[in-house]
């Protein structure tokens, strides 16, 4: 085929085009996503208000039970009061824990899911990507803006939760490394929220429709969380092995150490079987003893059994937090880069 007219071969006198400033692109991102951000902010504010009210009630109860002046907590005068307090407040705190667990994906999917997918679904990418700024800067501007916003919001909620839950940790109810609360404190909560956002954006670019992208993001994020909690987190550092009474100062709770496995060794040196343990326990109950950890421990010891357990010490909290926050941040950056690549190369 031949050209229609004479091709012009002279090079264009092209002065380098000054790009559209990031500030303007960020404003567009804010203008188009402020509703989603407002929704996320309302959700986070509601959760914070709930924790504030409930946390203040919890503290006034601690005072009125006299638990704030009780040292050590294992003193018998304290333990009755502590039991009453725990009965009254622990289950309520677990509801807060349950709600907070799903907050990262709610916020991430709400803000991140529609970010790219809505433009692809409605065809407006043909408008936005053909403007002078180009699609790469358009995408990076809103990606960074919204990522910072959701991460900051999550960090604030996480701080609030740390304050709220502090009495439970003080009373030794949970280890700071306990799976249900570990990723609600420190940097992990912000990390999981950022990852939820990045997964949602990436799913949107891949699936190109808002609702299916959100559903996929929820599935992927939940799968990742379950994998980490059950199979990955306890391998961040090699666990220690202990013997004797676990968390001797824990009172009625789980105590500060995160216990992974435990087993009994017979007087002969071989591991005790389940049936052996069961029969020993029933002997204790027939003898009229209360099966508190201390009583069980003492009873078994009298029979010549020794308890062994593997655990992660509570002192590893911050190194675990940094490990988890670090790889979640790396994963999010990777997903963001993958989204930019997809948008650049895989359009219409």
């Amino acid at each position, binding site marked *: *085929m*031949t*050209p*229609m*007219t*004479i*091709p*012009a071969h*002279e*090079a*264009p006198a*092209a002065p380098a*085009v*000054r*790009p*559209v400033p990031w500030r*303007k*692109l960020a*404003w*567009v991102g804010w*203008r*188009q996503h402020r509703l989603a951000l407002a929704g996320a902010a309302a959700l986070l504010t509601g959760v914070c208000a709930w924790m504030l009210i409930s946390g203040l009630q919890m503290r006034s109860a601690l005072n009125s039970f006299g638990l704030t002046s009780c040292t050590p907590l294992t003193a018998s005068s304290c333990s009755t009061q502590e039991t009453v307090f725990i009965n009254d407040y622990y289950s309520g705190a677990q509801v807060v824990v349950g709600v907070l667990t799903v907050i990262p994906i709610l916020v991430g999917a709400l803000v991140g899911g529609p970010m790219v997918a809505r433009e692809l679904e*409605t*065809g*407006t990418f*043909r*408008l*936005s*990507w*053909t*403007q*002078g*700024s*180009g699609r790469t800067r*358009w995408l990076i501007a809103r990606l960074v803006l919204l990522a910072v916003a959701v991460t900051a919001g999550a960090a604030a909620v996480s701080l609030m939760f740390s304050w709220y839950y502090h009495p439970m940790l003080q009373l030794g109810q949970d280890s700071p490394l306990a799976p249900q609360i570990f990723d609600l404190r420190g940097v992990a909560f912000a990390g999981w929220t950022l990852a939820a956002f990045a997964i949602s954006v990436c799913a949107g670019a891949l699936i190109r429709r808002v609702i299916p992208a959100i559903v996929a993001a929820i599935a992927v994020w939940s799968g990742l969380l379950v994998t980490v909690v059950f199979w990955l987190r306890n391998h961040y550092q090699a666990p220690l092995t202990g013997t004797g009474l676990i968390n001797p100062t824990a009172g009625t709770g789980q105590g500060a150490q995160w216990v992974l496995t435990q087993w009994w060794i017979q007087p002969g040196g071989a591991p005790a079987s389940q049936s052996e343990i069961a029969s020993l326990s029933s002997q204790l109950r027939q003898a009229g003893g209360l099966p508190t950890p201390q009583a069980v421990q003492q009873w078994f010891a009298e029979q010549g059994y020794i308890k062994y357990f593997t655990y992660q010490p509570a002192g590893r909290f911050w190194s675990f937090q940094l490990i988890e926050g670090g790889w979640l941040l790396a994963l999010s950056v990777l997903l963001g880069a993958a989204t930019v690549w997809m948008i650049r*190369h895989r*359009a*219409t």
Partner: protein
Amino acid sequence: MNIIETHGLGKRYRRTWALRDCALAVPAGSVVALVGHNGAGKTTLLNLLVGLIEPTEGSASVLGGEPAGSPAALDAVGYVAQEAPLYQNLTVGDTLRVIASLNRRWDQPRAEARLAELGIPLNRRVRRMSGGQQAQLALTLALARRPKLLVLDEPLAMLDPLARFDFMDTVMTAASQDGLSVVLSSHVLAELERVADHLILLSRGRLQVAGKVRNLLDRHQVLTGPAITAAKLAAQLPPVHIATDDDLARILVSSGDQTGELPEGWRREPASLEEMVLGYLREPSVSALPEAEEVLA
């Protein structure tokens, strides 16, 4: 300077070629009509020119050598996509602000003046506007960027006849005032005849007809005469298309010889753009592409 230049341009989706072997050179200041059946590759060609998609093979450049989709190209190419996509939840004023913020150059007074002329208030929600008003807003956004090349994909589809006239009037005014080049695809042949000085006809992803409208019309004529002798006449000259209506035949021919003797009952008349395009649309195997020497002439 060639406002559009493509070499061996092709785009494949999975196994089908939406466009192939497309070689074009359109001089600046042209108004190009892009026609063809649905699925002939018009939108693919336009998407390649504005950089929304990347070519599978070959290359496309605009504005005299800027690769399609490069920052310099994006900066000076205005595009109104099919069905004029807009953010339905925004007001007209917010739409202006959003698009202004996505561009280096922006002519707010021009946009506001045009919207005032059209009677579109700035506080109206886009979703409350008619299809025609949305198309006008999309054109306003594209023109306020003061582009050097304006690409319009089926801009007339959503408009009634009067709105079509107004829309094209705006485009042509901008073209003549700013020296703007325009490429528009459309099925409304009558409207194209009024404005276009270049024609590109695509068929099944390939160029079938390309050239200056005036040159093409000079080379084409319609012979009308009795249907009985049409076949005999057609055998002597390669016709583009023969249309018969009862006993009257119209033969579209493309030939250099425009003065030769015709059989009894036949006469010659110039072809209209519409008749020529329709003739080629019905005969996808016949093409009219300029020869090298013709181009140079």
